[in-house]
């Protein structure tokens, strides 16, 4: 979907810096940011939190049928990343194919181009992950 400039602009803290939320009442971590803690609701004390960017592969897939804007990237690997703090997010794992990835692999966040879905529009940047070399 094409994104408007204001939409992209207001996503910058989350997409560029992995800023989400922590609830100081239950110590639950959330990404992207939330205004209401789903566990504590009105008793929650939600604050902004910058994630460390470290995590592990919870599950993954290699995409072969691309959505619009990703045609020249296939095949690429998408994963559910379990961040060290406990929250999870969906992101691409760069520089690998599906055969190189296993559930549990260690990851760290990298900053990359996500897509440019309009030749005259914005180039969208944000978080992706890469495997930590051991």
């Amino acid at each position, binding site marked *: 979907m094409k994104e408007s400039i204001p939409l992209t602009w207001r996503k910058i803290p989350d997409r560029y810096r992995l800023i989400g939320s922590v609830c100081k009442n239950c110590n639950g971590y959330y990404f992207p940011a939330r205004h209401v803690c789903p566990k504590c609701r009105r008793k929650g004390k939600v604050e902004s939190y910058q994630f460390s960017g470290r995590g592990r592969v919870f599950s993954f*897939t290699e995409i072969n049928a691309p959505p619009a804007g990703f045609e020249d990237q296939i095949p*690429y690997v998408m994963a559910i990343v379990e961040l060290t703090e406990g929250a999870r997010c969906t992101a691409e794992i760069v520089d690998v194919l599906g055969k190189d990835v296993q559930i549990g692999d260690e990851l760290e966040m990298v900053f990359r181009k996500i*897509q440019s879905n309009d030749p005259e529009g914005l180039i969208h940047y944000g978080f992706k992950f890469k495997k930590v070399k051991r």
Partner: protein
Amino acid sequence: MRKVAIVGVGMTKFGEHWDRGFRDLVTEAGVKALEDAGMSGAEISAGYVGTMAAGSLIGQEHTGALIADYMGLNPIPITRVEGACASGSLALRQGLMAVASGMHDVVVVGGVEKMTDLDTAEVSEILGGAGDQEWELFLGATFPGLYAMMARRYMHDYKATSEMLASVAVKNHKHGSMNQFAQYQNEITIQDVLDSKMVADPLRILDCSPLTDGAAAVVLAPLDIAKKYTDTPIEIVASAQASDTIALHNRSSITGVKAAEIAAQAAYKQAGVSPSQIKVAEVHDCFTIAEIMAIEDLGFFPKGKGGEASLNGETQIGAKIPINTSGGLKAAGHPVGATGVKQAVELTWQLQGEAGKRQVSGADVGLSHNVGGSGATAVVHIYKRVN
């Protein structure tokens, strides 16, 4: 609350209807349902229609009013409801609540989607909106990709195989071959599935439900007057709905659909039946892995055993629990908003003994399971033949 019965059903053939539009399809299904109930339409006091994405797929919003107009039902109140791929079951549930509460007497419920007016890439992007647009799809995930991640984790945790997944598609094509309304009426083999093009590893094209045009409709009435319209009313004895996080990654487990499990438990309690009393079920097999999770979430098989059960043929007609006698979403097709209503149509035929070659013998209690997105909405209905 009043007891409510289905007194008429109808559906179009599911498939690629290049010669027919949204309003043609939904009108055909609606007229068939009214004919089946022996009604002129004057008895109808309200309508509910499920459609996921008419605004994106054909540029048409306000579809409730459009349908009432073309069905000749003005000035009845008619309401469109949306819950992604579960839109049809949400419409059924709204109609049921309207009759049960006494707010309306005779209600028509429709489900419809016209999906083949755009190219596949555009339609895929629209369907992706059933997930979290900003935090899944925009970042590069696709809708099959989300189910692929469920499949990957499921196969990892329960040692399931691609053959087990494929067996679901093979069985549903076999059932679909006996259904004149199905999009695909050809049989396939496990090897066909394993040789088909990879979409999102481990899901191949033959693990995925297709893009489909189609519509389905049912007429609901209070049970105590149902015999006025049909000799074989089918009572809806339970209706339950649950929600979960919009994004898959926020769920503690992705090897099942928790909302479906919760809805199923609530439905069994309402109906006073156990999973072993269900004789036939229509479940949401948008991808093969989804059916395996569904038959576990519904309590037909223990967690982690659904794949093996499918491979062993336990979900075929004539076996332990016949699943998706219509061919399911995989073979009958998946016109998104129509699917939930089609499940009710198929189960009505089964419980009336009108399902022809695919009739399940002794079918007296049936269940439908309809899921929106990757599991953020789930709806379960239970149906009973009235003796």
